[in-house]
């Protein structure tokens, strides 16, 4: 008897420890996510340890990330386009320097590199130089460091271009990704809710037990299929279908993503709303029947309204599934980071961006932190959805 009490006590302790530990883990992950994500806004669009330099007589004081990118893409070729003199812009990086000077001039252990940079900028006053602080950290005589403004949340949320690996300055505009995510998720739910609700009504009210026993496990199996398989199915079946139906130049579109995600959200929606439909008390149904309502009228006027909060919860949970889904979307939406203007156009979503880019982003760098900031946005979105679900489910108890 005593022994069993000791076991009981220690088991209780163990269970308690596990509970605290998992809560602590969640907290730790969220803290880590936000620490990395928020520190992103203390950075400039240029990777730490690098800087841009111009001739000291150049009147231009500051360039935006967009201007720097256009200069290095050779879309801006004159300083006059960014408020400077009428001089052509020359770009200088370590590669160009190595071509312009001999190894002898650069020095045996490259100790003359700062001098060479100085010489180059001096002789070509239109030069925009991009170097590691290793070479220019102590400053250059004839040149001036060009300031870059920090990435502000305002720029982060309003810039419409996403070029995180563009050198020397990255463009981090999350707007196209955010809109892409919302567009795909919203329309996937638009497909999935009517279909899922119909299936749930059939399973809960109309199907006989035998059919139900076959259908239910099959629908639940749908949730068990790995998302890569959905993605592949989408790429091979749904993408060509969308392309042919709408006679588009390209089939990898937001629509294809919405359809695949809609199919993936179906099991959640069906299971949750079926459970909600089944909670309708028997006396309510019987009362409706007794008043002369047909089976369909009972479903329409009694059962579905009674289960409305559960059905709403199902839809919102489905959106949550769609928001966070990565692999399937990565394969069927084309992943072009452009501002979405229609459903029949490629989009890039936030989860797909994180999955595709985190592998090569240098640990702790600008790109890395930008992806964490994206993770924060995604976290806040799903958190909001979960809170809404809680509110929706709570409501009938109060009523």
């Amino acid at each position: 008897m005593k022994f069993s009490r000791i076991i009981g006590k220690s088991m209780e302790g163990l269970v308690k420890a596990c509970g605290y530990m998992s809560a602590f883990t969640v907290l730790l992950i969220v803290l880590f996510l936000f620490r990395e994500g928020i520190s992103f806004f203390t950075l400039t669009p240029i990777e730490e340890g690098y800087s841009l330099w111009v001739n000291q007589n150049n009147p231009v004081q500051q360039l935006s990330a967009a201007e720097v990118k256009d200069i290095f893409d050779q879309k801006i070729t004159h300083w006059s386009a960014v408020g400077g003199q009428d001089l052509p812009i020359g770009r200088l990086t370590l590669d160009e320097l190595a071509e312009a000077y001999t190894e002898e001039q650069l020095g045996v252990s490259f100790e003359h590199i700062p001098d060479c940079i100085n010489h180059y900028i001096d002789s070509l006053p239109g030069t925009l130089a991009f170097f590691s602080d290793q070479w220019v950290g102590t400053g250059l005589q004839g040149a001036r460091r060009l300031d870059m403004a920090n990435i502000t949340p305002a720029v982060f949320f309003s810039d419409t271009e996403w070029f995180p690996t563009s050198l020397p300055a990255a463009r981090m505009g999350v707007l196209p990704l955010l809109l892409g995510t919302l567009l795909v998720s919203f329309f996937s739910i638009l497909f999935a809710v009517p279909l899922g609700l119909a299936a749930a009504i059939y399973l809960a009210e109309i199907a006989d037990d035998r059919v139900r026993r076959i259908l239910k496990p099959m629908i639940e199996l749908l949730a068990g299929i790995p998302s890569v398989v959905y993605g592949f199915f989408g790429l091979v079946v749904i993408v060509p279908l969308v392309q042919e139906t709408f006679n588009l130049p390209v089939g990898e579109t937001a629509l294809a993503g919405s359809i695949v995600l809609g199919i993936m959200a179906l099991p959640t929606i069906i299971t949750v709303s079926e459970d909600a439909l089944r909670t309708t008390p028997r006396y309510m149904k019987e009362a409706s029947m007794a008043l002369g309502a047909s089976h369909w009228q009972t479903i329409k006027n009694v059962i579905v309204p009674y289960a409305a909060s559960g059905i709403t919860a199902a839809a919102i949970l489905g959106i949550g599934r769609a928001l966070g889904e990565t692999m399937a979307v990565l394969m069927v939406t084309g992943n072009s980071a452009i501002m979405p203007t229609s459903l029949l156009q490629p989009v890039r979503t936030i989860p797909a961006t994180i999955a595709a880019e985190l592998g090569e982003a240098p640990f702790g760098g600008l790109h890395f932190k930008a992806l964490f900031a994206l993770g924060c946005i995604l976290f806040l979105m799903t958190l909001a959805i979960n809170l809404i679900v809680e509110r929706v489910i709570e409501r009938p108890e109060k009523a």
Partner: protein
Amino acid sequence: MSGIKAVVLDFSFQTHPLKIHILKNNWIKITVLCLMAMACNNQSTQDKSGSHTNATTISVKGSDTELPLSQREAEEYMNATPGAAVSIVGGGSGTGITALLDGTTDICMSSRDLKTGEKLRFREKKIDVKAVIIGYDALSVIVNPKNQVRQLTREQLEKIFTGEITNWKEVGGKDAKIVAYSRESSSGTYEFFKEHVLDKKNYSPTVLNMPATGAIVQSVSQTEGAIGYVGLAYATSSVKSLNISYDQGKTYVEPTIEGAKDKTYPIARPLFYFYDAKSEVKVKAFIDYILSDAGQKIVAEIGFVPIK
């Protein structure tokens, strides 16, 4: 009402025996788990000590492009030489070069040459880097088989992928929109194409990014206005490879293994193995195997271009 009562009764009957059952069961489970954990612990310490004694394990790290090739080579090499051990890890060329700098890998696979900055860092650390070319990788520019366009110049490719040319009629095709496919920015192929074809300019944001080479082939084969780039070996009969000119359209070269070998085909890159000269004794046998006839046969089988 009576139905509900019955249910409640049912439950009250079952709770007691059930609880005991669960408790007993859990106790057994926990014991088993503890034992398993202990067993695992033992095993992992054994593993560690095993790898310590076996000092001849060659670690290879870097480019994902070379990953499948290195894996096959390592398998065949280990089959042919008893007692040899090679471990291969991917992660990208940059990752491999950093690992070689830190001394955490013996060989670094890289699908590009060292950048000036990287050479300097090796020199600072006084590491004498040796480079071996184990094969070549050529990129085919592919279009849908229904496309009439058969050849493009580098300049035209640059304009297509940076978004300046958007219609096939501008390069001698039908009046149809161009749909350009690229790999994701984490891919070495993405960087290679950007540097050697796009003149280091950024891709247009309208370019579609695919997570895998297979996905590009699949998409190009089912999209009429599509254009994409893939490794030579991936260009199947479901897509059409274009002839490329790097001299403003004077000569167009067909992407073939021969062309990549004698360097007449321009969009080709060497596949490097970098290693520290100090560890040459350790890695030489493996590298020699890759450069041997048997090793080069595997290079061709995987779809790369052998060096001989």
